[in-house]
């Protein structure tokens, strides 16, 4: 193992409810201070992979049945989320999931749960610095905030825990293009300024590969491709299936169905 490896998944399998096998031998490597993007279509197993890392499989009756998850040299597969979060891994869930009946500020305070008694005021300032739109909404119930504000909130809520490894599950989901751009800029800033290592799960491969250093492509519970972000961007298959461009660079619109069939064969 190289020195700057933060997390390594070795051939892990994940099974839900003892029978539904979703991950079939996934291996990936995440280096310190890098943004690693995990791409793939619906149901590929991206969220499951993140949950295997963060320990959140357990409440869903899922389990890592095979392989190892090494984090900072320790095996962490099937550890409790309480322990994993305290080692510095925080997952931002798919679909935002704010605490609706808590104000923005209270939501952020929950992010300090992994620490004992330390003052959090300074951290709040940091979050408001990254996400200025939240300042005005401090006292508003999260349930009444817009999608963009909520995505900022849930990233901020995770960031306030000072994670070493931040797992982001589809932060662009359901947001307007300009907001997505804004949020991705902030994600890159967090990575550069805080040195936070990030695993970024995305459908929006175009955006993800712009800020990621490295990328993996997942299909049907397996990694089918990996490489440096620039290389993936140039890869004709990725261009066609994930960036929505044919080899010629023209946008394909009417051939989605056909493309889907071809993808199946390609696997």
């Amino acid at each position, binding site marked *: 193992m190289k020195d700057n490896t933060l997390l390594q998944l070795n051939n892990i399998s994940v099974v839900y409810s003892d029978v539904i096998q979703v991950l079939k031998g996934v291996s990936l490597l995440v280096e310190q201070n890098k943004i690693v993007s995990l791409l793939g279509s619906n149901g590929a197993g991206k969220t499951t992979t993140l949950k295997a890392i*963060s320990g*959140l499989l357990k*409440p869903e*009756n899922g389990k890592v049945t095979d392989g190892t998850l090494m984090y900072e040299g320790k095996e962490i597969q099937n550890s409790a*989320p*309480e322990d994993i*979060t*305290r080692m510095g891994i*925080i*997952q*931002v*869930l798919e679909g*935002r*999931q*704010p*605490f*609706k*009946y*808590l104000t923005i500020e*209270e*939501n952020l*305070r*929950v*992010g*300090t*749960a*992994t620490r004992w008694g330390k003052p959090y005021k300074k951290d709040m300032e940091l979050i408001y610095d990254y996400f200025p739109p939240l300042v005005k909404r401090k006292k508003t*119930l*999260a*349930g*009444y905030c817009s999608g963009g504000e*909520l995505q900022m909130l*849930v990233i901020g*809520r*995770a960031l306030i*825990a000072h994670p070493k490894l931040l797992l982001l599950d589809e932060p662009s989901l359901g947001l307007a293009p300009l907001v997505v751009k804004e949020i991705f800029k902030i994600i890159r800033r967090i990575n550069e300024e805080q040195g936070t290592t990030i695993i970024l799960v995305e459908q929006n491969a175009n955006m993800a590969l712009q800020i990621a250093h490295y990328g993996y492509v997942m299909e049907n519970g397996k990694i089918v491709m990996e490489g440096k972000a620039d290389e993936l961007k140039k890869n004709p298959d990725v261009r066609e299936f994930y960036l929505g461009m044919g080899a010629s660079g023209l946008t394909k619109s009417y051939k989605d169905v056909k493309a889907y069939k071809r993808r199946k064969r390609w696997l």
Partner: protein
Amino acid sequence: MDFLIQLLVNGISIGFLYGLAAMGFVMIFKSSSVLNFAHGELLAAGAFIFLTLVTWAKLPIFLAFVITLAGTFVLGFVIERLFLRPLIGEPLIYVIMLTVGLASIFKGLMLLIWGGNLYIYPDFLPAHLSIQMGSINIPPVYVISIVIGLLFLTLFGFFFKFSSQGIYMRSVADNQTASLSLGVNVRRVFALSWAIAALVAGMSGIILGIINGINVHDLSSVGLKVFPVVILGGLDSIGGAIVGGLIIGLLETFTGGYLSPSLRDVVPYIVLVFILLVRPYGLFGLVEIERV
């Protein structure tokens, strides 16, 4: 007029006790979706622990009070550890049946130890606590009950609004997965909500015991009265529990005062049925925030 005011005061003080007991019930429900059918037994336990400390151990009243509160707190904690925790993740109906079973066990134990007799506490409340206004006389226990009710209400208000643990408890009630993802110790939150619920139930038990006397059957049936209160207030609203308690308390005393004492215990359930028919989510249930 004097009679009305008298009833009003009695109703409010009883209502606070119902409200506080119901608040504990709602806390357990909100954090873990469990309906605690052993709530009345927790009330009775508080009253009997206090009785034992005061009459048998002859402790000073204040000390006995504090020890009882600490004792019921620990009791709630232990119940969660021993009985509820092993069932985390099992279908809720098992957990609810478990609380029904616990209710019988606790009741049986208390009957075994103290029997089914009616006890009364020695008269320890200083008479000067009573309030005299014209011909209206408010006995000390009602004064105490209102004071303690307000005190606990403020205390819990601050706890839930400002303390970290309080905010974590609300976050778990709001979205358990998201709480887990941020490292909130959800099991500790469950344990704490049981402990706090048992503590407030025990305290309500003590004061209800002072008002009505202490009897296993009477006190544990108050646990049933928690249902109309929380249905009225909305199962998921802590503030609603208090308001629901006040309404039921007032209804009871007014029915007892103006109609007939034998009707007073029936009225809450008539209200329960009526509310369920008209507003199944309660008068003060949380308004579901739909956007998001």
